[in-house]
């Protein structure tokens, strides 16, 4: 069930399973390999990279929310050159496409970055991450820069709050696919310090909001693949985005809390469904594996007096 997720006809990206992790939630492809079969994902989207190195943020970086979390990392990364040097080998060996998330800073930096990325065969495409406070006009400028400069498809990740305004403009500017959307930004009070912290909000509650934006935009946008992203925590959440018209989905923070949900969603959307009772995969199941500790206790081997 292969699907083309970009309209860049020359170098279109085709994936076998319409899902991938979202940038910033999965590292650079080197983590979670003990826990899930990374090969089953449709693609890998790397952590955000900038042309120059960026330092980690200081102060409180994580604020727990009710059914969610606010995270501010500062998008730390060793810069494009060092990142490529470190991960080039790993990415070359990956059996699935690697999409590099490039933070859309300035036109100049985008130009230099794209030129450099174009040299790398191990990278299938570029996801351009727009700043949350960007205007449609600025967004167009940066996307045009990226598209003109390189050979690889450019996917653009839109902010949630202004997705309506920016989507069409960016599609006309030549984006090869849209990711709708980046996790919304928020401000929450750190219970430890009492200070307000600004960052990204990750929660299952984000999903209904973004799903509606995707649903609305699908009616307006023509001929550009849309990747739905926001708050996916269950198989049904992922299916809902596809039903709303998305070509594929990006799964974000559930990877942190239940890493194997990534594999479950990948198998579900890839048609390799999960057996109901145990949550085991057909190629893994053996009789009796459903006997989790909880089940054993239900059958009477209780430790309660």
């Amino acid at each position, binding site marked *: 069930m292969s699907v083309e997720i970009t309209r860049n006809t020359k170098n279109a990206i085709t994936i076998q399973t319409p899902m991938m992790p979202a940038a910033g939630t999965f*590292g650079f492809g080197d983590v979670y390999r003990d826990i899930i079969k990374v090969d089953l994902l449709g693609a890998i989207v790397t952590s955000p990279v900038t042309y120059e190195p960026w*330092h980690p943020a200081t102060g409180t970086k994580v604020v727990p929310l009710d059914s969610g979390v606010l995270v501010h990392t500062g998008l*730390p990364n060793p810069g494009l050159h060092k990142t490529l040097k470190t991960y080039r080998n790993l990415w070359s060996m990956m059996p699935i496409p690697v999409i590099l998330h490039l933070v859309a800073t300035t036109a100049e930096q985008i130009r230099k970055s794209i030129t450099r990325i174009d040299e790398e065969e191990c990278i299938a495409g570029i996801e351009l991450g727009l700043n949350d406070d960007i205007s449609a006009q600025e967004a167009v400028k940066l996307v045009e820069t990226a598209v003109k400069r390189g050979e690889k498809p450019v996917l653009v990740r839109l902010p949630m709050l202004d997705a309506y305004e920016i989507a069409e403009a960016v599609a006309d500017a030549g984006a090869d696919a849209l990711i709708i959307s980046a996790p919304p930004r928020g401000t929450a009070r750190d219970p430890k310090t009492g200070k307000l912290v600004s960052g990204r909000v990750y929660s299952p509650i984000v999903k209904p909001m973004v799903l509606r934006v995707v649903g609305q935009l699908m009616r307006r946008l023509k001929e550009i693949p849309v990747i739905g992203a926001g708050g996916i925590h269950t198989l049904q959440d992922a299916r809902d985005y596809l039903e709303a018209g998305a070509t594929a989905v990006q799964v974000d923070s559930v990877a942190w809390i239940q*890493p194997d949900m990534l594999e479950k969603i990948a198998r579900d959307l890839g048609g390799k469904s999960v057996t109901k009772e145990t949550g085991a995969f057909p190629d893994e199941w053996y009789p009796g594996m459903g006997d989790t*500790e909880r089940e054993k*206790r239900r059958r009477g081997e209780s430790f309660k007096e």
Partner: protein
Amino acid sequence: MKETQAVIERIKQVNLGYQRIELSVDESLLQIKPGQSILARLTETWDPYLRQQWFPVNLLNGKLIVERPLSETYEIGQVIHVLGIIGQPFRFRKTLRNVLLVAYDTPPIPLLMTIPWLLANKVSVTIALLGVATSYDTQHLPPEVEVELGNNEGEFLWQNQVMTLGWADQVFVTVGPDNEFSRFANVIERVRELRHDVPRHYLFGVFQQLLPCGAGACHSCMIRTDEGTALICLEGPAFDLTQVILR
């Protein structure tokens, strides 16, 4: 790292504020060493969202022992979802005779697993409880452990401070989680006043930041060191405070 299930086998109140919980765990977790932890998830709902970081205090007869506040309710037979092992063991020196553990404005729990391990290896252990940690009741700790209590002002100060810092081959400090960085900066400043040349691998900060992923995926636990950056969840929780950039 694996996603596994653990089961509560026994619960025992150990002092005025804490209970110890005995967990049957997946075999893979029996490799856990002092300094390492697990991420526990207690409910099937999304509130609370993040997993809790649990530092075991002991590994006894193949069971993992954790210490939790009495205010939390646990049940025998309760199943807990576990992600682990998280982090690296404390890097103890080979030739170790005295270790100083310091808990400053936070319970000493992340440090306690060292105690049975060090005592078994004939290493003397001193624990200094400062600030709010002075209210941590040590009656259940082995009698061999020397306990020092901080001064009443809640400063980084105790009666035999100069001596214990001098005698110690290694020091492991954990601090209140509000602004760990500036607290650690104060700690190293104070230690430098007392011991002009703080050597490498002597003074470790044990970081307790919230870990959304514990796997190196989210990059929210990244700190800067004089060798570049490091992730608390993969390379921590203990870092040589002379190497961490604390600004």
